C-alpha cells in the first residue's frame, strides 16, 4: 500500500483550479518530496466538473486518487464537494468554498441542486467552509478565490508558511502578486 499524502482539488471549469494545483505542486517539491499532479484539460474545462489530483511522499506511482484515498478534498464549489465525497478517507478533511454554481441540468430544471449541502457534508466529514469569494474581494480581486482556498488548505499541511509564499512568488505573474499574497494570507488566517 502507498503512504503518500493525497489531495484532491475539485471545482468548475474556469474557477482557477489549475493554478491552485500548480502552487501546491510547487510547494511540495520545495520540501523534497516526490510528487505527481494530474490535471484535466480540454472539453472538461468548459464549465464542467474539473478534478485535479496532487499526491506526494517518498515515491508516488499512480497520479490518480481513488475512492477513500484522499487526505484532503479542496472544493471550489459545494456541489463538486458533494461529488468528491467518496474520495475522502474516513478521517479526511474537506475544505469547501461556500459557493453554489448551478450546473446546466439544474438550470434547465432536469435535476435539483442538493439543499443544505453544507450541513449534510459537515455531518459526514470534518468540514471547513469558507466564503472565499468575500475574502478574495477583500484581497482585491474576485479571481483570487483559488489562492484564498490554497491559503485555507495550507494550514492542514506540513509545508511551512514561507515555502508557500516563495512558491506563489514564483508561480503568479508579477502584476497579480500583491493581490495573491494578500489572498493567501486571508485564507491562511481564516483556517
Amino acid at each position: 500500500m502507498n503512504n503518500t499524502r493525497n489531495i484532491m482539488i475539485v471545482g468548475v471549469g474556469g474557477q482557477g483550479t489549475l493554478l491552485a494545483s500548480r502552487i501546491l505542486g510547487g510547494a511540495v517539491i520545495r520540501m523534497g518530496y516526490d510528487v505527481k499532479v494530474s490535471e484535466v484539460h480540454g472539453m472538461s474545462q468548459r464549465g464542467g466538473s474539473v478534478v485535479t489530483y496532487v499526491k506526494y511522499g517518498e515515491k508516488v506511482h499512480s497520479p490518480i486518487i481513488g475512492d477513500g484515498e484522499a487526505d484532503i478534498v479542496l472544493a471550489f464549489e459545494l456541489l463538486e464537494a458533494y461529488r468528491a465525497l467518496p474520495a475522502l478517507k474516513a478521517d479526511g478533511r474537506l475544505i469547501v468554498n461556500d459557493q453554489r454554481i448551478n450546473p446546466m441540468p439544474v438550470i434547465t430544471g432536469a435535476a435539483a441542486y442538493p439543499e443544505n449541502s453544507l450541513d449534510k457534508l459537515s455531518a459526514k466529514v470534518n468540514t471547513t467552509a469558507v466564503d472565499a469569494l468575500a475574502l478574495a474581494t477583500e484581497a482585491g480581486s474576485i479571481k483570487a478565490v483559488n489562492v484564498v482556498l490554497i491559503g485555507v488548505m495550507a494550514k492542514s499541511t506540513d509545508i511551512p508558511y514561507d515555502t508557500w509564499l516563495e512558491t506563489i512568488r514564483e508561480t503568479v505573474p508579477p502584476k497579480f502578486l500583491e493581490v495573491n499574497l494578500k489572498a493567501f494570507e486571508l485564507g491562511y488566517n481564516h483556517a
Partner: protein
Amino acid sequence: MKKLLLGNAAVAQGAYEAGVHFVSSYPGTPSTEITECMANYPADDVFVEWAPNEKVAAEAAVGAAIAGGRAMSCCKHVGLNVMADAIFTDSYIGVTGGAVFCVADDPGMHSSQNEQDSRHYARAAKIPMLEPSDSSDCLNFTKLAFELSEQFDTPVFVRLSTRVSHSQSLVEVGERQAVAVKPYEKNIPKHVMMTAMAKGRHVIVEERTRRLADYAATSPLNVREDNGAKIGVITAGIAYEYAKEALGDKVNYLKLGMVWPLSATLLRDFAASCDKVYVIEELDPFIENECRALGLAVEGKEHFTLLGEYTPAMIRKAVLGEDEPCCIRPEETIPNRPPVLCPGCPHRGTFYVLKKLGLTVSGDIGCYTLGAVAPLASVDTTICMGASISAAHGMAKVQGAEFNKKLVSVIGDSTFMHSGITGLSDIVYNKGANTVIILDNSITGMTGHQENPTTGKTIRGEATRQVDLVKLCGALGIEHVTVCDPFDLKAFEAVVREETARDDVSVIIAQRPCALLKSVKYEGHCEITDACRKCKLCMKLGCPAISVDESGAVHIDATQCNGCGLCIGVCPFGAIRKAD
C-alpha cells in the same frame, strides 16, 4: 536539475535535448501542450508551427526528416487517422534525420469522440512504438526515439495517454545536444515510393521489424523487475504506475517501454519465470493477444475492461482479490455538470437562431459540439473533423431539396481549414445547394486558443499572412458568401432564412471572436429588472449565468455573467439591462 513537468512538456524537453530542428502539429487534446511547449524554445534552435491539419503536419515532418533534419509531429489519437496516409508510406521511406510521431490516446474520452487504441497503428504501419509511464520516461523515451529512428532508419511513434500527458512529475532536465542537419541527398529508390521501389523497400521494412524485435529483447526500454513472486504482470504506460501502486512488490513486473515490436524471447522468458501472468493494459488486448499468439497462458481482459481508464483499486481487486476501500457516499443523486458553452460564447447566438428555425444541424469538432447539449440541443450529428460539410452533402442528396432547405452545416474556422475546404468543393462540384455556416471566432477554441491560418499569427505570435475566408469560398466557386455577427440575432436569422431558402450552395461566416480571448472586452454584467414577466425566453439561450428559482423568478449570476448582452436582445419585454 529536477523539475516538475507535465508529460507533454517533458516530451518537448526530450525532443529539444535530442536536437530536434522541425516540429509541425495540429492541436488536439491531450497532445496540444507538446507543440505549445516546443514554441517556448529559441526559434534559432527549432522551427515550430501549427499546420492546418495532422496530415499536412506529418508530411512536413517527413519532408524535414528526408532533408536531413530531426523532425517531430504530434497529435491526438484521432489525429493519427488523418496522419495515417503519410505515415504508412514513410515507414517504407525511412529517415535521414530522425523522425518522431507522438500520439496521445484518450482512454475515458475526457475530450474525444472515440476511444481508439493507437497501438494498432504501430503494427499496421510496421513502425516501432515507445510508451512512457511518467514525465521522466517521456523525456528519456523521446530522446531515445530520435536515436532509434536514425539507427534503424524508421519513423518512431511515442504513444501517450491522457494521464501521462496531463500529469506532472519530476524529471531530470539536461542540455540540448547540438545535432547538425545532414546534407540532402537525392535517392530515388528510397524516397520515391512507386511500385518498383516500394517492393524493394517492403523487404527492408520486414527485415527492420525483425531487427527491432531483437533490439526489444535487450533494450533498456523494457524492464524486468523480479520480486521473487509467483505472479507476473506484463504492462506498459500508465497501467504500469497503477499496477505498481496496487501490487507493490507482491508481483514480478515486465514493464514494456517499447510496445511494438515485441520480443517473443522476452515475453516467453518472463512468462516462464512466473506461475501466473496477467497482462494489464488499458483499452484493447494488444500485448495480451501477442502473448496468446505465442502460446503463452496469460490472463487479461477476462479480468479487465476494454472501456475507459483503469485504477489501482481495480487492479488490486482483480489480482489480489482485495475490495476497494470503503468510502462515504452522498445520500442523494448528485446532478451532473456537463461542459457548456461559456458565458459570452459567440456560438450561443448561432445555435439560438438555428434552434428557433428548427433546422437540422450537421455538426463538427470543436467547442460548438456543445450546441448538442440542452437547452440548445441544436446539433444533429458529430462525426469527425470536417464531416459537418461532407455529411450534409450526403444527407441532402438522399433526402432531397426540401430537406436541404432545413439543413445547415456548422464548422469552426480552424476545423474548416483542417478539412472543411475539400467537403465544400465536393458540394460545389457535384451541384449541391447546401448552406454552410463557418463559425469564425478568430481562434482554435476547444484546445485552448491556438493560432491557425485564418488568425494572422504564427504559433510564436508573429504576424503572418491570413487566409481570407470570403475570398477562399469565392475561389471555390461559391457565389453567395455573407459575413454576419451571430449576436445580431435579427440580422443573423434573416441571413440564415435567406441562404437556406436558396437553390444554390451558400456560405455564412458567423463572425465574432471567442469570449475568452484577451482582446474581447465585455463590460460589467447584466441584471433582470422588474419588467420581467417570467416568460423564460432568455432560458433558451442555455447561458450558465441565467437561472430560474423555485418561485419562477429569473436571476443573473454576476460572478458568471461577462456582460456580453446577448440576453438583452432576446428579452421581448426589455427586462434585462446592464447593471450600473
